[in-house]
């Protein structure tokens, strides 16, 4: 393949090839291959999903009311989000109106998931791309304490506390079992934090591990159980009885008070730990402005968190909906999941077969017919691929496009869309502006790996505010005497039309998520999901347009070709729905991620 230009990038695969496989190993495998030029700058990137995930087909013929339970199993991290999207799709198809309380409780569960997911992502799946754990051993606990106290009022900040953390860390390192810290590229020159900042971040890594057990209780209270809460077409499966007592049965005042206290503690942790850490780490990496990829050009969000029940128009969504194309930030396009011209999937470079592969298919008409064939320049054998040929088919992920454009989805698009609409989203605007000011960077700095990571933190701060607001709304409605949580008028299939179709959407923490359902004779006839990592991790299309991961890796210099820290840092910044990211081990504790330099 000769060098060519697309979407403002010059793609050239003539340099040496580096293969990182697998990047992550949960819920589908992922691999990237890049070409480095003579200065070790990435000039070509190939993102491939290496596992079949036609998750929808097993739903054929089943009861639409059960779809959520299956979709919840698709993924190890997006469980609740898939379930919510699924019940919304069925409600859309059958025109079911949900009660106000059900909408608010779903919002609370979704916001709670955001806060949990973003925190875990930042501290446990992404921080170590910025924080050098081994360097923390060299930190002066007193200086660490001074640093911590200069950026936050968080009480755990004494020299003794940090000395204690450092000793625990030392013990771990000396025992030879770095645990989750094993296999990092410690000492790589791409790490920029001083030892004190590293130690502070490690301390908060540990605190966040402990803190997450508080957060998850909200899902148990409203969803009945965890880690797979119950969902219900038509509402939420929890009854409310404010006068009730005890821990069994309907949600009562005692448990609502617990929800409130969890919301307050989330706010405290985010404001006093997460955001200060983010800004502190960010200030050391300001100069590392790579990884923006498509974000400065094409961004998409479906929006979420409807303020009023059953109104899914953009004016009613507390997380913004819209599309930006060709970098025109002053023009926000409306998004409609059911418009056949908008969301389409292409398979010219995916291991599927369409009648005409220069055309995309809307998910309602989606076809999922596998076709595993490799391009002629593939190196290796069919069962052991050494190097992909991106000129041919090269991924199990389809290439979704919005009006023909490759789009980035996720927290960055959401926060940018909010920032651009200060009237509707004054809080998002204020948070983004505050962070830009504090770091003393222009708005264009958002379009980067670091910007994506910052957007996730700012969104968390916004979500803890929304949690409080939604909780107050729930309480006001309950106290006004409305205890209704489910509408079961159309529960019985006998009340359904012979044929129906609907679309459900959410913004999963990692981006736009849509489910499309066709119901025929009360059973599922067709079900299609387009998940966030399909948008971000998808391959090229028939025009050679690259996907969001691929674009984000372009033009990034790599300090050491055999330590792809910069590649992982950028891919992780998308929070790909492939949890547990880099830390994949074999029985003797060696990381299975293979890095091949050719």
């Amino acid at each position, binding site marked *: 393949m000769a060098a060519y230009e697309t979407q403002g990038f010059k793609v050239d695969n003539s340099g040496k090839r580096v293969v990182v496989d697998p990047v992550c190993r949960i819920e589908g495998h992922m691999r990237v291959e890049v070409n480095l030029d003579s200065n070790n700058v990435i000039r070509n990137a190939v993102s491939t999903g*290496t596992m079949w995930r036609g998750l929808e087909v097993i739903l054929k013929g089943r009861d639409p009311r059960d779809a959520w339970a299956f979709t919840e199993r698709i993924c*190890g991290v997006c469980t609740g989000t898939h379930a919510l999207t699924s019940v919304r799709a069925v409600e859309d198809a059958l025109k079911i109106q949900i009660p106000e309380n059900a909408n608010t409780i779903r919002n609370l569960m979704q916001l709670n998931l955001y806060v949990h997911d973003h925190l875990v992502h930042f501290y446990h799946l992404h921080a170590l791309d910025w924080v050098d754990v081994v360097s923390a051993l060299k930190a002066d606990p007193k200086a660490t304490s001074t640093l911590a106290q200069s950026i936050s009022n968080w009480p755990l900040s004494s020299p003794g506390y940090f000395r204690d953390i450092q000793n625990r860390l030392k013990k*771990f390192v000396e025992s030879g079992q770095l645990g989750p810290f094993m296999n990092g590229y410690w000492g790589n020159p791409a790490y920029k934090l001083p030892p004190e900042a590293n130690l502070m971040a490690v301390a908060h890594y540990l605190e966040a*591990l402990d803190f997450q*057990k508080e957060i998850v209780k909200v899902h148990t209270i409203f969803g009945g159980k965890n880690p797979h809460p119950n969902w219900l077409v038509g509402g939420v499966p929890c009854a409310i009885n404010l006068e009730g007592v005890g821990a069994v049965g309907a949600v009562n005042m005692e448990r609502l008070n617990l929800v409130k206290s969890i919301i307050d503690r989330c706010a405290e942790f985010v404001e006093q730990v997460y955001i200060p850490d983010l800004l502190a780490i960010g200030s050391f990496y300001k100069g590392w402005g790579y990884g923006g990829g498509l974000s400065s050009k094409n961004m998409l969000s479906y929006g979420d968190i409807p303020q009023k029940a059953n109104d899914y128009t953009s004016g009613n969504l507390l997380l913004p909906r819209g599309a930006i194309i060709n970098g025109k930030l002053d023009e926000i396009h409306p998004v409609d999941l059911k418009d056949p011209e908008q969301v389409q999937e292409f398979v010219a470079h995916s291991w599927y077969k369409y009648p005409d592969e220069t055309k995309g298919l809307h998910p309602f008409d989606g076809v999922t017919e596998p076709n595993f064939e490799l391009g002629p320049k593939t190196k290796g054998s069919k069962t052991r691929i050494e190097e992909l040929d991106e000129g041919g088919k090269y991924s199990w992920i389809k290439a979704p496009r919005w009006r023909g454009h490759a789009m980035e989805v996720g927290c960055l698009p959401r926060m940018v869309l909010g920032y651009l609409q200060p009237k509707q989203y004054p809080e998002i605007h204020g948070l983004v502006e505050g962070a830009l000011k504090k770091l003393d960077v222009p708005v264009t700095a958002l379009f980067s790996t670091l910007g994506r990571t910052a957007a996730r933190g700012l969104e968390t701060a916004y979500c803890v505010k929304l949690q409080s607001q939604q909780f107050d709304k729930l309480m006001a409605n309950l106290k006004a005497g409305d205890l209704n949580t489910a509408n079961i008028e159309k529960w019985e299939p006998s009340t359904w039309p012979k044929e129906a179709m609907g679309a459900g959407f959410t913004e999963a923490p990692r981006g736009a998520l849509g489910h499309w359902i066709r119901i025929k004779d009360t059973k599922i006839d067709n079900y299609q999901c387009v998940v966030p990592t399909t948008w971000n991790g998808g391959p090229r299309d028939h025009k050679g347009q690259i996907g969001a991961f691929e674009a984000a890796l372009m033009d990034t210099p790599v300090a050491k070709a055999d330590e792809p820290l910069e590649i992982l840092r950028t891919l992780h910044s998308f929070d790909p729905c492939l949890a547990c990211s880099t830390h994949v081990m074999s029985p003797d504790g060696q990381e299975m991620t293979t890095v091949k330099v050719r």
Partner: protein
Amino acid sequence: MNSKRILVLGIGNLLWADEGFGVRCVEALNAGWEFPPQVELMDGGTQGLYLLPYVQEADCLLVFDAVDYGDAPGNLREVVGDQVPRFMGAKKMSLHQTGFQEVLMAAELTGKLPAELVLIGVQPEELEDYGGSLRDIVKAQMAPALDIAFAWLERWGAPARVRQGKAASLTDAALAIEVYEGERPSASQAYRLGDARFLNLEEA
């Protein structure tokens, strides 16, 4: 009064044939037996790090899982104590276990690793069957696996008793093994193969 908190956890993805062993075991335990209040049965799915809070709270942890020991399919093994994390990270194993190894390490790092760890693992016969259920040889090991669990629960002072009446289901009713198996779409409707071709297993 023995107040040791016991977590009985089934992990794996029940959509991938024998991967569902762990979840099916806790489901069966819940359906047929009752336990003292300090015992919690949990369908952990593929939640990885999100299971940490529950693991941190337990004094004794018993995990059911499909594990690639390199044994003959259906072989059942009981692994105890500090051998558990090592086995759960074994090579070529299914997707979620590496995540679970990380959970155990994170629990240790926060000083909250359960004092007692037991892994009851079966060697899977088939994983690459999307939408499929347990193979007979693996399903046949559920009863012996439960017996091992009963012995541990007894030892931990929390014996199981045969359940009187119907249990509240642990997984959603639509995922219960009979419904799941009975309503499976045909192979011509729903492609069943995972993609082993790309996993570079040939020489592994």
